[in-house]
Every structure is written in structure tokens, then in C-alpha cells.
């Protein structure tokens, strides 16, 4: 058991209870190119508006590496292609049939299948893009063999879904998925588990299991990699989430891209937080119906630290198993920096509330102050349980010193690993944005 002491659990109201909520089955689904890193901003469409697709049919593919397909999670009709600045594709929307029709893929017998066959099937079915490659958190390169594959089986992010609940009923598919992954790497498949992880994870075969305990970000796969087998220059590891391992498992069991996912509906603005059975990329409109009373809210696909802001009729992100709704914080606050008019979570002991560490908060999107130069030191280290100097790393990115970035460990972190730094930052620096600019710089020019 690896005990991590540094970190911070942001305690919020609206944790999902272990109940499955009923809502109207969403009719719209979308796959969003901006959810992934490492493909061109304008991927090539394989369909036109009005095209009929089955679940597993390609919607678009990467121009540089045309074998990387993004497939429809449902069957139906392509009704919209969202465009952003410079004609970048923001989303491809499919209206689902009442009954899902799956494209069937010929599945090689797992024990005899070659690595190339497995990769081909993953690429063709669209399951490939559910994996991510470190460093940089990009779509994995099919031409390279990862040193290891890492899967975190618990999530410590604010209000995160309980992975034990998400995997219920998918145990066998998960085990099959692990076997598939084991054939992709020259090293091991690592599972990071917590003391409360279910047997599905702790007794998994074909994997090396490491137990972790500690506050967020102990559940981040990047932190776990650092403590099990850190990423050195030149190393490549892949990561994937447990439910997506099960999607790969079902692909090899049944020969279909069955992208069902359970997601947690959470947040202080949600009236009945709980779980919903749905499919990757589903519209959140029906999930939120009757759940959110206020108008002035922000809907987040993912958690409050790393999720993306989506409209109330937007779509779940490609990797997200959580939906969070919080209040908007657009009101000025009289002397708010001195006498806060409502309680708010903070790592700082300058608020007396630090004496009540179990208190849960209703939060909003206010920045609680303005951006300043770095002044306070030593605070980032408190929330990053790694042998890394986050502030020095960020500064090396700001002055574009490649050698320093490498030396200070840029290969070991992605945005989510330093997200807590951004939350606690006294100077309100955009930490994740700075880190991403450094990652892109090293990836493209390094």
C-alpha cells in the first residue's frame, strides 16, 4: 500500500448516491474532436449530414493517421456537424434510432490473435481512441508499443463517480478487456486500487495491482504511474478508464462497439444526485430534466477541476463518466476577500472553516480574486504527491526552456495532475492552460 499524504479533498455537496435514476433515453449523441489531444483540428469526415450510421461506423478520422477512427456510439442519422473557429469541427451529432443496430466486426480468437490483429480491430471499431498515451495525454500511436498500461480503479476528484458502482455488471467484460490490453504492451498492465475497491479490481487477473490511499489526486493515474514506474524521457505508457476497458472487453466478446457507460450526476445544484445508465457522448438534456431548479448554473461534463463547460443541451465528453452542475458566481461580493458572505472550500487556514474538515460546500464559479504574479511559495507542493517542483516547472514553460521542462518532469504530468494547484493558487494563475501550452510545445517542437 502506498500512502500519499499530500493532496486535498474538495468537499462538495451533491455526491451521487448509489441509486440508478430513470430518465428519458437521450435521442442525440455526439463525438467531439476537441475532447482528444494529438489529432488535427479539422479531422476528415467519413459521413455527410443525413448519412445513416450503425454503432461502430466511422464518423470521422484523423487526417495525419487515417487509421484512427472515431465511431458512432449509436445507430441513427447524422444530423449536424458543429463548426468552430477556422472551420474546426467541434462535434458530430447523431440522432439515435429507438433500437441500436451494431456493426459487427470479425473477432479473432483472443489467445491466438496477433498484436497487429488486435490493434486493427480496436482502430476499426473506434475503441482505440478510448486509450490515451503519456507523455502528453494524446491519442495512442498504433505504431509504437507502450512500456506499460495503467488503469486507475478509483477516482478521488471532487464528487467523482464510484468506480465500483460504474463497473457493476461489467465484471466479465472488464476481465476480457484486461487480457486484450495485456497483449498490447511489452510490459505490464497496472491497476491502481484503493482500500475500498471491489474484488473486480483487487482480484483482477492478468494485471499487477498496487494499492494507494490518500486525498485527491491519489486516484489520478498520473500520480500512480509516478509511484509505480515513473515515465522517463523516451518512455511511452498508455492509460484507460475501467469502464472503457469493459467496452474493449465487449468488443472482443461480441464483436460490436457497445459504448454503454454509467455516469454519475452530481453537484450542489442537482436535486437527486445518482447514477444513470447511458451511452458515450449522450446529450445531457434529458438527464438534467427536473433535476436543476435554477437557471444560473454551469453544466460540466466531468468534475469541477478538469471537466469541460457544456450547454444544458450539450453532450458528455468522450472520457467523462460524471456530470456536475454548480451555480454561476457572477455577483460582486462586498469585501468578500475579508469577510466572505458565504462559506467556500479552501486549503488556506486563514478561513476558520479549516477546523471543520468534513464540512461540504455548495460552490460557484467565481474566481474569488484576480490574477496576480506568483507570490506565495510552497503551496503547490502541498497538493502534488510527486517528487516534482510544480512552480518551477510552470515557470520553465513560461520562458520556454525545453531542457528545464524535461528535467523538471513535464513528461510525468498532464493537466489533471496539477489541477489542484490551479484551484488553490493564491495568484489565480491558469495552471492547466500553462501546462498544456508546455506539453504542446514539447510534443510538437521537442
Amino acid at each position, binding site marked *: 500500500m502506498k500512502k500519499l499524504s499530500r493532496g486535498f479533498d474538495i468537499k462538495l455537496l451533491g455526491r451521487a448516491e448509489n441509486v440508478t435514476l430513470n430518465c428519458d433515453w437521450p435521442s442525440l449523441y455526439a463525438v467531439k474532436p476537441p475532447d482528444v489531444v494529438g489529432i488535427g483540428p479539422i479531422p476528415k469526415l467519413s459521413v455527410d449530414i443525413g448519412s445513416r450510421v450503425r454503432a461502430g461506423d466511422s464518423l470521422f478520422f484523423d487526417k495525419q493517421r487515417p487509421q484512427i477512427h472515431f465511431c458512432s456510439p449509436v445507430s441513427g442519422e447524422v444530423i449536424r456537424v458543429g463548426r468552430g473557429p477556422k472551420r474546426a469541427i467541434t462535434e458530430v451529432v447523431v440522432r439515435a434510432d429507438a433500437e441500436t443496430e451494431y456493426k459487427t466486426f470479425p473477432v479473432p480468437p483472443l489467445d491466438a490473435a496477433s498484436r497487429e490483429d488486435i490493434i486493427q480491430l480496436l482502430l476499426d471499431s473506434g475503441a482505440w481512441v478510448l486509450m490515451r498515451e503519456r507523455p502528453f495525454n494524446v491519442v495512442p500511436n498504433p505504431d509504437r508499443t507502450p512500456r506499460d498500461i495503467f488503469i486507475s480503479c478509483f477516482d478521488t476528484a471532487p464528487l467523482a463517480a464510484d468506480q465500483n458502482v460504474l463497473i457493476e455488471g461489467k465484471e466479465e467484460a472488464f476481465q476480457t478487456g484486461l487480457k486484450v490490453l495485456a497483449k498490447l504492451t511489452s510490459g505490464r498492465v497496472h491497476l491502481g486500487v484503493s482500500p475500498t475497491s471491489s474484488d473486480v479490481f483487487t482480484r483482477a487477473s492478468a494485471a499487477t495491482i498496487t494499492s494507494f490511499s490518500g486525498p485527491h489526486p491519489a486516484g489520478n493515474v498520473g500520480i500512480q504511474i509516478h509511484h509505480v514506474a515513473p515515465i522517463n524521457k523516451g518512455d511511452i505508457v498508455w492509460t484507460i478508464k475501467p469502464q472503457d476497458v469493459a467496452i474493449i472487453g465487449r468488443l472482443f466478446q461480441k464483436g460490436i462497439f457497445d459504448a454503454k457507460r454509467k455516469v454519475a450526476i452530481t453537484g450542489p445544484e442537482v436535486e437527486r444526485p445518482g447514477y444513470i445508465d447511458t451511452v458515450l457522448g449522450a446529450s445531457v438534456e434529458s438527464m438534467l430534466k427536473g433535476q436543476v431548479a435554477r437557471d444560473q448554473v454551469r453544466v460540466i461534463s466531468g468534475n469541477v477541476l478538469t471537466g469541460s463547460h457544456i450547454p444544458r443541451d450539450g453532450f458528455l465528453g468522450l472520457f467523462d463518466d460524471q456530470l456536475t452542475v454548480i451555480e454561476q458566481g457572477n455577483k460582486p461580493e462586498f469585501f468578500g476577500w475579508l469577510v466572505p458572505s458565504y462559506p467556500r472550500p*479552501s486549503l488556506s487556514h486563514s478561513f476558520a472553516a479549516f477546523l471543520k474538515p468534513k464540512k461540504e460546500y455548495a460552490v460557484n464559479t467565481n474566481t474569488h480574486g484576480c490574477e*496576480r504574479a506568483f507570490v506565495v511559495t510552497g503551496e503547490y507542493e502541498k497538493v502534488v504527491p510527486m517528487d516534482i517542483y510544480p512552480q518551477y516547472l510552470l515557470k520553465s514553460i513560461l520562458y520556454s526552456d525545453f531542457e528545464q521542462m524535461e528535467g523538471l518532469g513535464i513528461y510525468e504530468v498532464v493537466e489533471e495532475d496539477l489541477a489542484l494547484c490551479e484551484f488553490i493558487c493564491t495568484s489565480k494563475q491558469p495552471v492547466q492552460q500553462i501546462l498544456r501550452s508546455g506539453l504542446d510545445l514539447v510534443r510538437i517542437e521537442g
Partner: protein
Amino acid sequence: MKLFENLVQKVKPYFEGDGKLHRFHYAFEAIETLFFVPGTETESGTHIRDGIDLKRTMFMVVLALIPTLLFGIWNVGHQHFLAVGQYGGALEGFADKVLFGLGKVLPIVVVSYGVGLAIEIAFAIFRKHPVNEGFFVTGMLIPLIMPPTIPLWMVALATAFAVILGKEAFGGTGMNILNIALLARVFLFFAYPTYMSGEAVWVAGNPMDFIDGFSGATPLGVAYLNGASGLAAAQPFDYGLTSLIIGTVPGSIGETSVVAILIGAVLLLITGIASWRIMGSVVIGAFGMATLFTWFDLSFYQGVPAVTHLAMGSMLFATVFMATDPVTGAQTHTGKIIYGLLIGMFGMIIRTLNPAYPDGWMLAILLMNVFAPTIDHFVVQSNIKRRMSRAL
């Protein structure tokens, strides 16, 4: 309050975009954000932010300084009345002492804040950047490390020198190399030494009124000349350890009371704003050095025990409020410990071995400010080497 908010919102357009007063945008913003935390929402990255900001952080430090300020105000009066032979007891003539102290201290505070903030705001307007809260603290620190007799124009000059050359020239708060308040003091110390040291500057009032044989020397001065026996025999003051701890002795305005400084230290440590690593290691470094000097009888301070050394002069004030400045100090955990130890050791070396300087903390901290980036460099390099060797 709503009325005030409406008023602010009403004049705001004048300061924005093409408004008539847009040049003063950042001056307006500084005042606006002082009263109202703006309704700005998170855009990229995390959707929620911690309640802490730089204003609150800086205000906590000012709050921690308040006990030393209040005690200093009373003590300036107390020392004056001791010198003229009135109100010998600590509690006698309380109101008179406070009024006298206020008359001396308040103008210094007003000048320090006035000059400093004017320069900050002017630079913010010309450079087009928001006003940083750093001067909240600096403006309070400067008066507290001045002798009560300091002429106001010197305070103004020193503040302007420190803020312009020490901070703005480097790009503002967060970019400076040297501690601003100490820079203000060191400027006066070398430019006008007779106003900053000696026996005559620590007690306010007209020397003609003072009782016969009154010297006005600080405990440090007495101990330097006559050692422990000198401290024991001091008149009309009591320079025993109890007085040093309570702070009823002459000295710079905020530095004398150990109790008041410790109250501030506790607040800074509980809130986590000052680094316990730095505070602790300075005290350990200084105590160790003082013990060593006493042991080998190397010190000019005959027979003064190490504990008394910690309570005398500006040692504690500098440790709690100056060495812990996050911008000018070391930034890594290991670096902070090395930085603190060296400040403690150098400070005590300058105090005990160098007859030219009455106290070593100002110089020791400024020296280590310069070396802090070097210390951090080695700490960070060792991290880089560790990572590189892992890859092999």
C-alpha cells in the same frame, strides 16, 4: 451598501474602454476590487477556485503586525515618559503614553503608505497592470523598523527609493530580489547613519527635557559595551529578560516586544502564510551561533546568554516578518531550511563579531535574499539530476 455598489457601477464606464478616464482604469480597479470581489467567473481550467486570494493573504500579514504596532505606539510613549522622569510604572499614564506614541507613529505610517501607494498606482497606470497588494504589508513594515525619531521626509525618501528601485524596476510585486522594507531601512542606515543608530534616536522627545544622566541606549548597545552586568545595572530602564520579553525597552517602533511578535508569529503559522521552515531554522541558526560564541567566549557581549540574544534587538521581528517574505526568500522546502539557518548564523556573526554594525539581521537577510535563488537552483538541480539518473 447596495447604494454604494450602484454608484461604483455607475462611474465604472468612465474608466473603461473609451471612457473619459480610461487612463486611470487600473487605479479605479484597485479601489473597486478593494471593496468588491468582482463577479468574475472561471473561464478555462478549474471551474471553481479557492476562497484565498492575494488581498486576503496580505491582509493576514498586516493583521499579524497589528500587535507589534499597538505595542509600539504605547512603548514610544512609555520610553518618552521614562526619559523625562514621569509615569515610571508600566500602567501609569496609559492614555498620555498612547497619545504621545500615536503622535509619533501615526504620521510615519501615513507617510509610508501614502508615498508607497502613490508610486504603486502611478506605475500601474503607466505600465497598464493591476495594482498588486504587496504594498499592504510593506507599507506597515517600514514604520515598524524605524526609530521613533525618524524625520518624516526620510521615511518618504526611503519608501520611494525602495519601491521604485527595489520593486518597480524589477517588474513589481513578485519580481523583486530584495525585501522592500529592509531595502528602505538599509538605504537610510547607510545614507543617514546618525538618524538610524547610536544612543540618541530611540527615545522620542526633546533631549533637554530628559532627566540627568539619561543615555537612551538600547539593550543591545548596553550589552555590547558592558555585557551581562551592564544589562543588569541599566538605569532608569530595566533591561532584564522579563522586560525584553514584554518589550518595555527602547528600540525600533515594532521590534521590542517578544510577546507581540510571537502573537503575530502564531497567526502566521496557523494560517500557514509564513513558512515554519524559515522561522524555525533562523531561530535554530541564531541560537546555535550565539551558544557557540558564548561557549568559546568570542563575543563582545560578555556573559550574555543565548536566550537573551534572541530577545534583544530586531532578531525576532526580522525572523517572523522579514525572513519569511515568500518573494525574496528561498522557494523550495529544502532551500528554505538552508536559507533560514544561514540567516540565523550570519545575523548572529554580524551582531557579535562586527563592531561596526549594531545589529546583523537586516544585512544578513538582504545578503541571503541575493543568494536565495542560488540555493534554490541547487535544490532544483538535484531534483533534475535525480530524474535524469532514473532514466539511465
